[in-house]
Structures are given as structure tokens and as C-alpha cells.
């Protein structure tokens, strides 16, 4: 059951439901690609569906002093706007990018939390999913930079001022590496954190079978502890991903260099 959380199989609920097979399959650059429903895709669709329902509910009961779910969502959105966006970039830019940051935050959070439900799957524990999320963040960061400095200005910014001419080509390569390393780090961090929690629980439960009944109590106790820790990590990783995306946008749109 735990391994199902870590794998991406074309079936659901411990292979009880088989998802419809690949709709499209083709070869590109020597790699065979099959596009179809898998466990993680279903989980992401579920997360998106839940978020749409949440949005409709919040929108319908809009009020000056929100109650219930509206209150909860407002607290998160205000936190993202004031503590993440406004803290890392000028106020005018912060409002522009708050919607993107909120979308990222809620999607990652719901995916992480869905991964903690028994028979579920952690979509954010799949490198392909986190890579796509990081790619979206990468596009947004580049867009923010180009919007602020202009396309040419953005590429000129790759060579820091005051660098001797013979160092300029090397600096372009070094800066370009930084540009790609940022989303790479985002992607690996989210993936590793979501995978690690599940792997630790799996190892703890596995100890019972290795050692015998003596390990039952400590293993289950530690497993529950790690599970509680994972609920915290689900929030923390969503926050860190959003925060760092915001910091990277902020570095490019800041008024002073």
C-alpha cells in the first residue's frame, strides 16, 4: 500500500481499478512516449477538481468578514500576498504575481495532502510532476524578468556590470547555469522531500518483517510520528516552493540591482 504511494502505475486503489490505456503513443528524439492516465495524473486531476470546487464555494459566499472555508482560504491568500510576495518584491509587482503564487501554493499543498490519504498517491513525489511545476515557475521567472527589463535588457543582464570583456563569455555561461539551476533545485527539493517521508515510513514498517514482533510497537509509534511530521512537511514544502519562486521573481523585478 505504501509502495503504491511512491510508484506511478496505470491503476488505482492497489491495482483494483485499471485506468484506460494510453491514448497516444509516439517516438520523439529516440524516446518512446505514451500519454494516458496514470495514478499520479488522476491524483493531479483530483487536486485540480478540489481546488475548483473550493474556488466556487469561496466565490459564492464572498463577504466582508468571511466565515468557514472562505476564512481559511483568505488567511492563506493574505499570507501569500503579504508575507511572501510583498516581502520579496516591490508592492506594485507583488499584486501582479500573487495569483500565480497562490495557484502554485494551493496545487502543491493539495497534491501533498492527497498523498497522505491511504490508497492515494503522492503526485508531487514523482520527478516528472515536480519538473513540470518547476518548468512553470521557470517560465514565470523569465517572463517577469523580460517584462521588467525588456527582452534585450534581460539578456544584457546576464553579464554583470564591471566585468572585463574577456571574462564576459564565461560569465554568460555561468549565469545561464544559475538560471537553470534555480528551477532544478526547486524540482529536486520538492520531489525528494515528498518521497523521503513515504520511504521512511516504508522502511519502519519493513523493520517489523525483518526483526519480528518485537519491532511492532516502536515501528508503528515512529511511523505515526513521521506521518504527523509529513503533514507539517506538506505545508512547509508548498510554502518553500512558493517562497523561492517569489524570491527569484523578486531578484529580477527589484528596482535596484
Amino acid at each position, binding site marked *: 500500500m505504501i509502495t503504491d504511494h511512491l510508484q506511478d502505475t496505470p491503476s488505482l486503489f492497489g491495482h483494483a481499478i485499471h485506468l484506460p490505456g494510453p491514448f497516444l503513443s509516439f517516438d520523439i528524439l529516440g524516446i518512446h512516449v505514451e500519454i494516458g492516465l496514470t495514478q499520479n495524473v488522476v491524483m493531479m486531476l483530483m487536486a485540480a477538481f478540489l481546488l475548483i470546487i473550493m474556488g466556487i464555494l469561496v466565490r459564492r459566499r464572498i463577504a466582508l468578514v468571511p466565515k468557514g472555508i472562505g476564512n481559511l482560504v483568505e488567511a492563506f491568500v493574505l499570507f501569500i500576498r503579504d508575507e511572501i510576495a510583498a516581502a520579496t518584491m516591490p508592492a506594485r509587482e507583488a499584486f501582479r504575481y500573487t495569483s500565480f503564487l497562490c495557484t502554485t501554493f494551493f496545487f502543491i499543498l493539495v497534491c501533498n495532502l492527497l498523498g497522505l490519504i491511504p490508497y492515494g498517491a503522492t503526485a508531487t513525489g514523482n520527478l516528472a510532476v515536480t519538473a513540470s511545476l518547476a518548468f512553470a515557475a521557470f517560465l514565470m521567472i523569465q517572463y517577469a524578468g523580460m517584462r521588467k527589463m525588456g527582452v534585450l535588457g534581460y539578456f544584457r543582464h546576464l553579464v554583470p556590470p564591471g566585468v572585463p570583456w574577456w571574462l564576459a563569455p564565461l560569465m554568460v555561461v*555561468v549565469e545561464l547555469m*544559475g538560471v*537553470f*539551476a534555480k528551477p*532544478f*533545485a526547486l524540482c*529536486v527539493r520538492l520531489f525528494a522531500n515528498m518521497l523521503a517521508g513515504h520511504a521512511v515510513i516504508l522502511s519502519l514498517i519493513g523493520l517489523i518483517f525483518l526483526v519480528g514482533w518485537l519491532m511492532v510497537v516502536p515501528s508503528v509509534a515512529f511511523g505515526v510520528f513521521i506521518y504527523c511530521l509529513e503533514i507539517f512537511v506538506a505545508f512547509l514544502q508548498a510554502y518553500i516552493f512558493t*517562497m523561492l519562486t517569489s*524570491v527569484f521573481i523578486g531578484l529580477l523585478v527589484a528596482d535596484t540591482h
Partner: protein
Amino acid sequence: MPRFSSSLRQVGPYLNLGAMLAACVAIGVGLGYGLDEKLGTHPWLLLAGSALGIGSGFYHFFKTINQQLRKADKGDES
């Protein structure tokens, strides 16, 4: 709560330092290795890529720290 969020805000930019260093090295090594495989120039591009990756990793490390220090200085003055 305000204290918690303000400390989170301060720690934010530093959260990425270690991962950036590792990511730069990984990208450099991966790029060098891939090019080596393609061009058959073992092991020279791998070495060059590693050196470039390590160099750019350290460059971005110190760049981030300098930026944050400058920001902190400015914050103290005003």
C-alpha cells in the same frame, strides 16, 4: 505568529543556497558527461564541465550572500 513569519522571511533567500550549489555542479557534470558521450572525447569535457559547474556553484553562492548582506546593511541604515 508575526515572529515566526518574519523569521521565515529572513531565512527564505538562504534556503536555496545549498541546493543551488549542488544543482550547479550536477548540471555541469551532466552537461560534460552528455557531450562526452556524444562527441567521444572522454574524459575531457566531463572534467571541464565539472570545473565549470563547481565554479558557477561557488559564484552563485557568494553572489546570493553578498546580495543579502548588502540588503541587510541598507536595512540597518534606514
